[in-house]
């Protein structure tokens, strides 16, 4: 790479000190009508640009900061065998450059304004963000709109960046025994549901990815009608909408080639997988196939499963901690829960680490006993109240972070639920009864939906060579 030392500063003359004044732009465009949907309680506002790109703004005037996130509705769940990890690899390459902002300048420009920027890839989304002083929002729009359409994927950049991605996989998964159990759990539970493969991709696929795979992926998914722009912070919604239209409004929409449904084969019987790894502490995960909110036939079931997660693992007072950690001292730690905001059917997860005195088999049995208890008996009103109290408090606490608020909006939008779900969530959780919790436990936490993944530690024997 050729170091570019002067360009960033030159660009800043154009961007930072003259053109980037939101004041003038707002005046210029204020007259143009725009259809805006607002919720005053949530202080959230939405508009859709003519090209289909949705823009959502949430006001938070506590500090002179703003976060801007661009969410693309593509993640590892859109990938097929052979190209797993392509969404994430493309996310890395999105920082490499365009004709207007060549390799290296993106980071320098963002650094120059003191923004924190990064990106994250999930099963259902790829998202890019800048967190910055409120006066810099326009630079963020300029850069994001540019790389939405003009990314240059060079062979040279890719060659070293894919090595970085492989290092990331080694770091997060290959050298982390519990992460390998997690990876194997999903790969075993799902045959043809797209959550089968890991977000970061299989190593062999990473080794064989080509720039052309990324190019295809970019062309297929990166377009305004497949994206949402989320802005949270000390901003005036109308000004943001106007600015968004100015920067993103002219980008051509294209047809989105829909993914195939890939509905999971019915499971018959429990699946088990063992991961042998050089490790010292055993570990177990259980995964039960459950619907997400977006896929549930009866949407209350998703909320009931969420409450069930709270009853089992909503803090230290919850059942797994109280009974398995403190009462029986079977495990040093245990967890349960699920992501009701997944786009496709997903897994309700349990995990546990046994104490020295107990075996993984005992722990597995103990987890089944807890499940049986939930299926046979009603959870107490106190337990439900505690789960609900925490939901109410969490809604306040999460407002302490603009980034967190934006992430909630972005993920709801991306899976098709919409940001208004934020306003409904608490009510829907509050309405869940003990009977409903029992009902979902009886319906979903059953053998024919279960996959068990175990870590079997093997000793590290020093080689003598």
């Amino acid at each position, binding site marked *: *790479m050729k*170091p570019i*030392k002067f360009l*960033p*500063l*030159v660009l*800043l*003359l154009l961007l*930072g*000190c003259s053109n980037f004044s939101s004041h003038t732009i707002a005046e210029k465009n204020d007259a143009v009508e725009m259809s805006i949907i607002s919720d005053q309680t949530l202080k959230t506002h939405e508009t859709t640009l003519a090209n289909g790109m949705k823009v959502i703004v949430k006001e938070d005037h*506590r*500090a*002179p*900061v703003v976060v801007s996130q661009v969410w693309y509705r593509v993640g590892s769940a859109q990938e097929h065998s052979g190209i797993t990890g392509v969404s994430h690899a493309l996310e890395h390459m999105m*920082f490499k450059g365009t004709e207007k902002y060549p390799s290296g300048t993106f*980071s*320098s420009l963002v*650094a*120059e*304004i*003191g*923004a*924190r920027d990064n990106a994250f890839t999930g099963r259902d989304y790829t998202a890019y963000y800048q967190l*910055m*002083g409120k*006066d810099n929002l326009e630079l963020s729009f300029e850069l994001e709109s540019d790389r939405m359409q003009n990314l240059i994927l060079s062979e040279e950049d890719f*060659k*070293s*960046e894919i*090595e*970085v991605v492989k*290092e990331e996989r*080694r*770091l997060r998964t290959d*050298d982390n*025994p519990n992460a390998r159990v997690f990876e194997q759990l999903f790969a075993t539970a799902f045959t043809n549901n797209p959550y089968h493969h890991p977000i970061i991709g299989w190593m062999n696929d990473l080794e064989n990815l080509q720039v052309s795979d990324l190019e295809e992926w970019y062309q297929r998914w990166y377009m305004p009608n497949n994206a949402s722009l989320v802005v949270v912070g000390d901003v005036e919604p109308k000004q943001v909408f106007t600015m968004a239209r100015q920067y993103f409004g002219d980008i051509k929409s294209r047809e989105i080639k829909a993914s195939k449904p890939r509905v999971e084969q019915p499971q018959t019987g429990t699946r088990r997988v063992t991961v042998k790894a050089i490790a*010292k502490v055993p570990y177990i995960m259980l995964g039960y196939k459950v619907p997400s909110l977006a896929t549930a036939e009866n949407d209350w079931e998703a909320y009931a499963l969420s409450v069930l997660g709270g009853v089992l693992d909503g*803090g230290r*007072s919850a059942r797994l*901690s*109280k009974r398995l950690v*403190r009462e029986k001292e079977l495990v*040093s730690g245990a967890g349960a829960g699920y992501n009701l905001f997944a786009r496709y059917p997903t897994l309700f997860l349990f995990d546990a*680490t046994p104490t*020295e005195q107990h075996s993984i088999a005992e722990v597995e049995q103990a987890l089944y006993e807890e499940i049986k208890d939930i299926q046979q008996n009603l959870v107490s009103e*106190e337990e439900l109240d*505690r789960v609900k*109290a*925490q939901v109410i*408090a*969490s809604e*306040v*606490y999460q*407002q*302490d*972070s*603009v980034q967190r608020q934006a992430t909630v909006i972005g993920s709801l939008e991306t899976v098709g639920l919409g940001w208004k779900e934020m306003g409904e969530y608490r009510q829907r959780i509050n309405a869940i009864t003990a009977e409903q919790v029992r009902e979902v436990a009886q319906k979903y936490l059953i053998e024919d939906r279960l996959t068990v993944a175990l870590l079997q*530690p093997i000793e590290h024997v*020093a*080689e003598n060579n």
Partner: protein
Amino acid sequence: MKIKLIALCLFGFSFLHTASAAPQIEQWQTSNGVRALFVAAPELPMIDIAITFDAGSGRDAELPGLSQMMHAMLNTGSGSLSADDIAETFEGLGARFGASVSLDRSSVALRSLTDEKLFVPALQTFIAITANPSFPEKDFLRIKNQALIAIKDSSQRPGDMASRAFYKAIYNDHPYAHPTQGYKHTVESIRLQDVKNFHQQYLVANNALIAIVGDIDLQKARGIAEQIATSFTQGSKPEPLPVPTVADDVRDIYIPFPSQQSHVYLGKLGIQRGDEDYFALYAGNHVLGGGGFTSRLVKEVRVERGLSYSVYSYFFPLLTPGPFILGLQTRTDQAQQAAEVSLQTIDKFLMEGPSEEELSLSKNNILGGFPLRIDSNRDILGYLSLIGYYQLPLDYLETFNDNISAVTQEKIRTAFKKHLNTEKLVTIIVGGPDGEHGS
């Protein structure tokens, strides 16, 4: 010419903007002499409280892991309250309790909604378990078992192993040498009485600092601080920890481990909080390895060579000198190469310092990013604890940008030469085949 103008333009702008943004800090002493710091944050109906003690793992003395274990036991009992009661109380109120242990300090924290019906009992429980814990025997054995599993778990993680080896190499016999979680044999030998003694000696009013941020007024905050402070026994402030000395025989350490990656740490003894060179080193390190994608280390190690997903460097100033650390992870057969590239990058930086453009970019990043440092109650609470604990000036935040602005290329060169001498850098590599390490 143009370039300089632009830098100035942005610079001045950021400065003006952020100078007014620093929060208004109120400070006082409770009737029994505990320092309290408070920032009113009326925007959200919530309160954050943190009590900081000079009671980190550096105070473990002969029993590494003791402070950690003591703090892990706080929420297992107080008076007639059991671990179940405490958990049910906090969670029924939507309140959150946390305790954390670092090398020099420890802290206990409460987050609650402001509503009196929720906050009053949450505060009461928070005070009860931190000032008057009962340390039940049954819970002690359980927590000890959990601690031992955590240690075992660490010993299967090359990153943790490398970090441990690093601190041991830098600090030798100093109390910062051991990991906060301790060692198997020391944790095994901790008795319940040791836990009680540690609490009695270190979690006392004369060793405490209270920080409060939230939707209350000053009068209310004073009342809360008073209630907290007077619930602790008075006690005394512990003697300062010894000043670490630089080991004479610094050597590189290689620990084979059957992992895909080697974890590499380079470093040496750095500076303590309040060091006059702090801002020069902070800004300089931003150029070297603290500034993310624009830093030299990321460019050399990650962008140019694709050797590591993450590579960084930082000074970690503590009450007594803390370390300078450079860290990265890479495929085992590339570990030597990555370490060499890192060392060369430091060497080059030591020789030439940052260029004018680099320093300007870093300064703009630090100054422009200032609002992000204090944009949440949690961040502000962290700064109150930092300012109070290390006795930094109360206008630390207000003057932060001035101090950064005053840094020059020359100051950085001088400060780095003084504090970073590569001849004394230790290199730790964990991961790779047995036997002699090399390619």
